[in-house]
Structures are given as structure tokens and as C-alpha cells.
């Protein structure tokens, strides 16, 4: 789960990380009021759940109220990577002496939370990571001890030559680690962390992602969720025990198991078609699940054909077939469907389906070819 910058800043503040004041605005007149209230040079920042806002023109400096209104008009309503900007954060502009990068992330290889830090922060951090990886410090934190004060200090001293500044940064690192663990984050990033001419160290941007598996014990984080239309569909599917992700193609896929679902999408592409979605219905033959899945698939108007791909393991294919037949009785659609059943009791299942007139096949490749053919009619 992702949250907006303004929400991440709120969490940072709650943990005592210094963040400049900011006001969230939905309209140009709110931007005007916010700029007046802050009474200083401000930055107007688009709040969208995607990276690269600065490069897209979604972050702009304004010297006075009039300029804030001008850039507010430009940014509110603009489109950044498919996201419409519905709100902006108006924040005090800070004087920047130098920009740094600090962040925590889960690392699969070391099986630990890893601290990443660099003296070359800012919007080019990904380029820095790619071209000069030696400029990024990576430090896996021992989960049994957490990030210890001396460790945070030693890393901060590699970024800051002044010990007082390093101590300020170390305190931010310790707090960032604490909030990372306590909120079950999968990413907590400050980019940039800045040094001001006065020697203060501030977080002027923040990004956080969270572990979906841990949301059950993070009610405060869950309450911050602001899903867009597409995510609402995915969440609704999730509540029905389905895992759904919309894609751009025209062949709807219904599959049991995530790996097989991905392999099904790949196969459609391999034979020249284009999958409309990822949809994993899990390991049950419950007709209701099939009905829910079909309704989700068919709500996508791009879908021209549906490929159902089931490998019966513990779930028997004849049970799956009965579920499908029941579902088909309740759903009326002109969209052609091809069903592939394989595994436990596949023959019985296919025989049951034949009576209903649904096209059935026994291999994945046949099913993909057939679905593509049907979608082109």
C-alpha cells in the first residue's frame, strides 16, 4: 500500500523528524490562503501516488502569493503518469545548502531491513544508484538489535563532515528506522534530506509504502489509504478472495494460482494476443467465486474473449466444472469463452462442460490459441 507525501510527512512529524510546515490544498483559493498563512517563499507540490513528480512539472517554487496562485493553477488538475492531480501540498521553501538521500527498505538477499544513504540526494538518485553505485551506502540492520545509535552516527558521519550536523542526521535515521518497524513499512525514504545554510538538517520530502500482509495490525495506516478507481476494483476483488489486476489487452483470463495466471498471460502474448488482466481465483471450486470473477472480467469493456485456465490439484476438475456451469446459468454474455481443465478428474470435468456447449480444450497452448482466435472474430 502506498500513501501520499503529505501523509508520510505527518508520520515523520509524529516521530519527531523535522519537517517544514505545509498545508494540503484542493483548490486554487486554498493555495492562495495557504501561501498567505505561511507568509514566505513556498513550494507547491502535486500529491499523486507516483514518482517523478518534479520532472513532470508537478513541483514548483513560488516567491509570493501571486506566484503561488499561478503555479497552483498549473499543477491542480494536471496529469502525471496517468494520475490527475487533485490536491497539492503548499510548504515552506527551505534554503538548501546540500541534498542527501536516506531510506530504509526490506532486502530479500540479506533478509533484513537495509539502510541506504547517499551524499548525492535529489531527483537524480536513481541515476546515481545506476551509474555510481559506490556512492550509495547500504547497511543491513540486525533485526535482533535494531539500528543502534553508534551505527546511525557512523553512517551519518560518512555523509556529514560536521559532527553536530551528523548527530542531527543520526537522530533522524534512528527515528526513521523506528517508524519503519512500527508501521510495517516496506519503504521509508527521505529524498532529499537537506542541510540548510544555518546547519539544520530537515526532511523536505517523504515517501512510504507498507506491507499489505501487515495491514491487519496497522489500523492507522489502513485509514490513510486513498485508492484510485483501478485500485478500488482490485480491493473489491480481494475482499471476494480474488486477486485482480487490470491490464490493457482484450483477452480476459481467469486462472487458479498466481504463477499459472502469469504463465497464462505470457502464453497469450507468446501466441500474438494481449491479456486484459491478471486474475487469480485461488484454489476453490465455489461457484460464487467464479461468478464474482466473471463479473469482474466482463466489467472491462475491452474484453473480447475469456480464457479460463484451471489446473485441478486438490480442487477436482469436476467440481470446478460444476461451479462454472452454475455460474454460466446466472451470467448472460455474448463474449465467447474457452475453458481449459487439466489435472485431477479433468476428463469428468470436460465431459460435464461439453454438455453445455462451452468450447473446452485440455492444454494451455490450445486454449490460448483458441481464445486469440475468438477475440479476433
Amino acid at each position, binding site marked *: 500500500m502506498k500513501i501520499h507525501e503529505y501523509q508520510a510527512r505527518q508520520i515523520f512529524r509524529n516521530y519527531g523528524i523535522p519537517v517544514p510546515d505545509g498545508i494540503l490544498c484542493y483548490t486554487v483559493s486554498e493555495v492562495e490562503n495557504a501561501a498567505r498563512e505561511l507568509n514566505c517563499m513556498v513550494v507547491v507540490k502535486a500529491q499523486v501516488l507516483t514518482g517523478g513528480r518534479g520532472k513532470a512539472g508537478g513541483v514548483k517554487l513560488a516567491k509570493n502569493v501571486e506566484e503561488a496562485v499561478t503555479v497552483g493553477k498549473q499543477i491542480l488538475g494536471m496529469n502525471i503518469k496517468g494520475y490527475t492531480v487533485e490536491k497539492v501540498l503548499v510548504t515552506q521553501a527551505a534554503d538548501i545548502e546540500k541534498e542527501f538521500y536516506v531510506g530504509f527498505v*526490506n532486502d*530479500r*538477499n540479506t*533478509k*533484513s*531491513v537495509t539502510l541506504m544513504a547517499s551524499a548525492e540526494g535529489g531527483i537524480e538518485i*536513481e541515476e546515481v544508484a*545506476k551509474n555510481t553505485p559506490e556512492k550509495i551506502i547500504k547497511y543491513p540492520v*540486525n*533485526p*535482533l538489535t535494531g539500528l543502534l545509535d553508534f551505527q546511525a552516527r557512523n553512517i551519518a558521519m560518512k555523509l556529514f563532515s560536521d559532527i553536530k550536523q551528523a548527530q542531527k542526521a543520526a537522530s533522524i535515521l534512528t527515528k526513521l528506522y523506528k517508524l519503519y*518497524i512500527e508501521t*510495517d513499512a*516496506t519503504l521509508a525514504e527521505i529524498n532529499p534530506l537537506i542541510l540548510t545554510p544555518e546547519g539544520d538538517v530537515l526532511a523536505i520530502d517523504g515517501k512510504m509504502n507498507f*506491507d*499489505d*500482509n*501487515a495491514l*491487519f*495490525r496497522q489500523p492507522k495506516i489502513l485509514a490513510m489509504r486513498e485508492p484510485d478507481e483501478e485500485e478500488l476494483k482490485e480491493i473489491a476483488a480481494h475482499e471476494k478472495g480474488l*486477486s485482480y*489486476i487490470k*491490464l490493457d489487452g482484450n483477452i480476459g483470463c481467469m*486462472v*487458479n*494460482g*498466481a*504463477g*499459472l*495466471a*502469469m*504463465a497464462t*498471460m*505470457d*502464453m*497469450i*502474448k*507468446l501466441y500474438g494476443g494481449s*491479456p486484459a488482466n*491478471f486474475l*487469480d481465483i485461488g*484454489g476453490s471450486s465455489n461457484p460464487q467465486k467464479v461468478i464474482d470473477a466473471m463479473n469482474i472480467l466482463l466489467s472491462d469493456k475491452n474484453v473480447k474473449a475469456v480464457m479460463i485456465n484451471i*489446473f*485441478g*490439484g*486438490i480442487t477436482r476438475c469436476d467440481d470446478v466444472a460444476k461451479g462454472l456451469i452454475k455460474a454460466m446459468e446466472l451470467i448472460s454474455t455474448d463474449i465467447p469463452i474457452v475453458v481449459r481443465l*487439466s*489435472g*485431477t478428474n479433468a476428463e469428468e470435468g470436460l465431459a460435464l462442460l461439453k454438455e453445455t456447449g462451452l468450447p473446452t480444450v485440455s*492444454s*494451455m*497452448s490450445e486454449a490460448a490459441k483458441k481464445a486469440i482466435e475468438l477475440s479476433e472474430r
Partner: protein
Amino acid sequence: MSILVNKDTRLVVQGITGRDGKFHTGRMKEYGTNIVAGVSPGKAGEMVEGVPVFNSVEDAVKATGANTSIIFVPAAYAADAILEASEAGIELVIAISEGVPIQDMIRVTPLLKQNDTLLIGPNCPGLITPGQALIGILPAMIFKEGNIGFISRSGTLTYEVVNLLTLNNFGQTTVVGIGGDPVAGLYFIDLLERFENDPETKAVVLIGEIGGDAEEQAAKFIAEKMTKPVVAFIAGQTAPPGKRMGHAGAIISSGSGTAAEKIAAFNAAGVPVAKEPAEIPVLLKQKLEGKI
């Protein structure tokens, strides 16, 4: 021979009185797995599918000499169950539970290392040594005894491919589903090493997915350390970046973990990568006959 589990495995089922635990205990027993105990706090003295239930793993180990555990408890309690098994001296833990928080697994990892406990999963279908022991939720009838080692991050895709192998007369030594979570127990390299050292295993099939760099590391290991042929498949070649495909692990972010990168790494290591599941037995045959 085989890896990790065989007919001498003494299995304890944690969460045996739950719906899934009970159901799969019956199936595993039917297959011939040597299940010696179940654990469910407060249910000591009960019998489930003819298996005696204990209040703790410690009690179960003392009474039955169990050395391997399978975990069916809900995700929120899975980390605790894993550590309970480890502290009781269990050597191999298989965690089936799906949806375990990542931080829980990160905290568990150093303690398992300290106790020398091996972990498979979480969020995995388990493993099977055909003809000897089924420890997991895999459908028994598709497997066959033979010489192919099998490692996969996926569930049903594993069944799909194993079924194709069996139909093409490629039986298996051991089939391991390592699970799709970002932080998990034994991974490709740990298992490749075991298959390399298993005299019975003649070749290995590896099923990877997008996300992470475990496949790239596996490719490096194969090039440097393996003498046995390996054939691979990568699921998720058409998945869009930044989207989570059911498995927490199957996500591509910031330009790493793409299928193209993994396929290139395998090809560079001399590992043929199948374009679709049906091609795997074909490549395996060619590889074993030295034609590719």
C-alpha cells in the same frame, strides 16, 4: 535418494485441529508420510486422523522424536509457530501459511540461523519426495519417482509443469515449492546445491518468477558450481512494472527483476529457458541427451 525429506522423516503438524491442518493431515497420511504428532494448544490428548495431538511442539518432540514440522496456523501466528518449532529442536520447518507480515519473517531469520533450523516458505505449497513423503498441499497423483530435481516459486504452475514432466516420463527425486514471498527460507541456491550433491538427481528444473534477483543469483551459482543440467522457466514476462501479481514477491520495481534480465542471466549460464511450460520436457530431453 532425495533431498530434505524421505521415508524416515518424522513429521509434526502445527495447527492440526484447524480445517486445513486436518484435511491435509489426512491426505499426507494417505500418501504414506510418516506423521508422528500434531500440535494445537489446549487440545492435548485428542486424535486427528489417527495422529496424537500435543499442546506444544516441545511435548510432541519429546514424546515422538519428530524432526520436521509443517505449519498451517493463520498468518498472524505463523512466525511464532516457526520459532516454537525451531526452539524445540525441529530441523526442517515447512510454513504453508499465506500472508505472513514481512517484518515477522525478518525477525525470525537470525533465530533460525542460530538454531540451525531450515525453513521452507512461508506462502508455499510444501515439498514431496515421490513414493516416500508428501509434506504440503501438493496434489499427490501428478508426481512420479525418478531423477529430476524440481524447484519452484509458484504453486499451480508447479503442478502444471510436474504433470507435463510425469506425462513425458520424467519422474522426480524431490519437488520443492519455495513460495513467493519476498523474505523466505531456503531459496534456489540452497536447493540447487542439495540437488547437485544428491547422487540420484540427474537434472534440475527451476521455475522462477519476476521480482527480486534470486534467479540471477541461481544462474551465477549454476555457471560456477553445478555439473548437472538445469532447465528454467520464468513466469510474468508480460507483467507490467510496479504491479503486484498475487504473490508478494512477483513485483518488478525500478528496473530490476524483469523476466528479460533473468532469461539473459540463465542463457549466459548455459541454462535453456522455455518459452512456455510445454517446452520444458522438450528442453530437458535435449539437455540430457547433450544436444543443447
